[in-house]
């Protein structure tokens, strides 16, 4: 399952974050985050639960507002643009939620059609169907097209969630704990899918995870979030060869137990 050759364009930034701060009441979750994600690059953000990893990508998608700092996505300042502009930007951002977030009241087909029908009104019914079939094919779940989300397994739900984001052909992909709660085989399949998406669409991606296998398999670069700051950044091997004691227990738990 080795990573394929990638073309990371270091002259083009997909995401650029500077001095990002976010608090909830007295809980200071993010305390000055700096991060650049280049076009065609996968960055895995590692950290324990409750360290603000999900908060970080929710700020990038404009779902949360930071207290301080700047977030540039594809050249747009997320914190400074209007709601209309943010909606336009979101069409180029794919967000895979931890819970998959499939709409319970819609079938798989309707889930995938939803963003297309609302945002690409010029498409004919045939083109919409073709796009849905293509997206399902990309995640290997064409047979589930008429099923309800409740009838799918956890892994299938994750894949459909990713397919729903792919249908809009995003330039940025944000994955929130893509392998959480999945068995090792399904996790491996999801990791492969993340790499395939990156290869096919040349996306810039942030993969939020506490699963080191996922980080190793998908991340061109790994950033470790601790106490609201990135304490280590680099390739997976470099980060865990650094001898940082704070990462040792994390590594041991993931690979030894």
């Amino acid at each position, binding site marked *: 399952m080795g990573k394929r050759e990638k073309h990371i364009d270091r002259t083009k930034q997909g995401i650029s974050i500077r001095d990002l701060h976010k608090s909830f009441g*007295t*809980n*200071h979750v993010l*305390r000055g985050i700096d991060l650049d994600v280049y076009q065609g690059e996968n960055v895995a953000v590692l950290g324990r639960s409750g360290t603000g990893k999900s908060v970080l990508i*929710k700020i990038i*998608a404009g*779902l949360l507002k930071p207290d301080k700092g700047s977030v540039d996505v594809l050249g747009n300042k997320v914190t400074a643009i209007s*709601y209309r502009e943010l*909606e*336009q930007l*979101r*069409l180029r*951002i794919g*967000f895979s*939620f*931890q*819970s998959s*977030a*499939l*709409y*319970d*009241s819609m079938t798989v087909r309707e889930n995938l059609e*939803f*963003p297309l029908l*609302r*945002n690409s009104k010029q498409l004919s019914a045939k083109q919409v169907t073709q796009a849905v079939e293509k997206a399902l094919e990309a995640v290997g779940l064409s047979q589930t097209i008429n099923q309800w989300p409740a009838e799918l397994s956890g892994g299938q739900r994750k894949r459909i969630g990713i397919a*729903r984001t792919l249908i*809009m052909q995003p330039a940025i992909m944000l994955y929130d704990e893509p392998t959480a709660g999945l068995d090792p085989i399904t996790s491996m399949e999801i990791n492969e899918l993340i790499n395939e998406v990156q290869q096919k669409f040349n996306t810039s991606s942030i993969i939020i995870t506490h699963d080191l296998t996922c980080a190793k398999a998908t991340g061109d670069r790994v950033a470790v979030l601790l*106490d*609201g700051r990135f304490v280590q950044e680099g390739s997976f091997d470099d980060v865990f060869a650094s001898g940082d004691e704070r990462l040792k227990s994390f590594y041991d738990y993931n690979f030894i137990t």
Partner: protein
Amino acid sequence: MHDASMKLNQKQPRRYIISEKLDAFFSDVYAFGLFIARFFRVLFIPPYEFKEIIRQSYTIGVKSLPLITLTGFITGIVFTKQSRPSLSDFGATSWLPSLVAIAIIRALAPLVTGLITAGKVGSNIGAELGSMKVTEQIDAMEVSATNPFKFLVVTRVLGTTCMVPLLMLYMALLALLGAFVNVHSNEQTSFVSFIENGFHSIVFLDIFSSVLKSIVFGFTIGIVSCYQGYNTTQGTQGVGRAANTSVVMSMFLIFIEEIIIVQITNWFRVT
């Protein structure tokens, strides 16, 4: 550095303006006020989501019909049955159609329809939106460039506001039919005579105030339930609480609004 962050994360004792519960109550009222203001602000901004409004109206209106039919018919029968002995004591059973029609149109139909819709539709909206909130479906909608407030809240509130008055008129008809069945079985009154007697004392203001009440009740049920569902926290427990609070708050506000509108209508009636 670690110590500094530990200090920052230490919980400071909170200070309250009045008391913990009253502060929470007033901040909730304030948030609810902002939610209503947001509804009216978003209401007039395109796209107008006509398709979803029709879908919601169908779900709210048509699917409530069986319950409204049953309760309307039974309300008419029971109210007539219970009123007969009192009128009979004064030898005034001929006034029964008139009494029943006034009671149904002025009070029973809007109030019972409001309460039933609050129970059936309010809990449904509260639970549905609550569940969507805790499973991140609302966030998913937002990142797919759809305004979830417009798509989920505005459409449902408009659905309840439009459908409750229609359900109320339907219930009034069914309740009158129930009343007629009871009157006919006891006094062999014809349908035409029953309607003539019944509507003899009904004026335009009665029907107008009932429709107005129903519009207000419908809006209340929609906005309260959406507010509760849309602001659900604490997982599945929160979903249950949202459904429950939607019903309780809607019913409570319906009674308050009933008193206010009746009072205002009475001023017009006197003048």
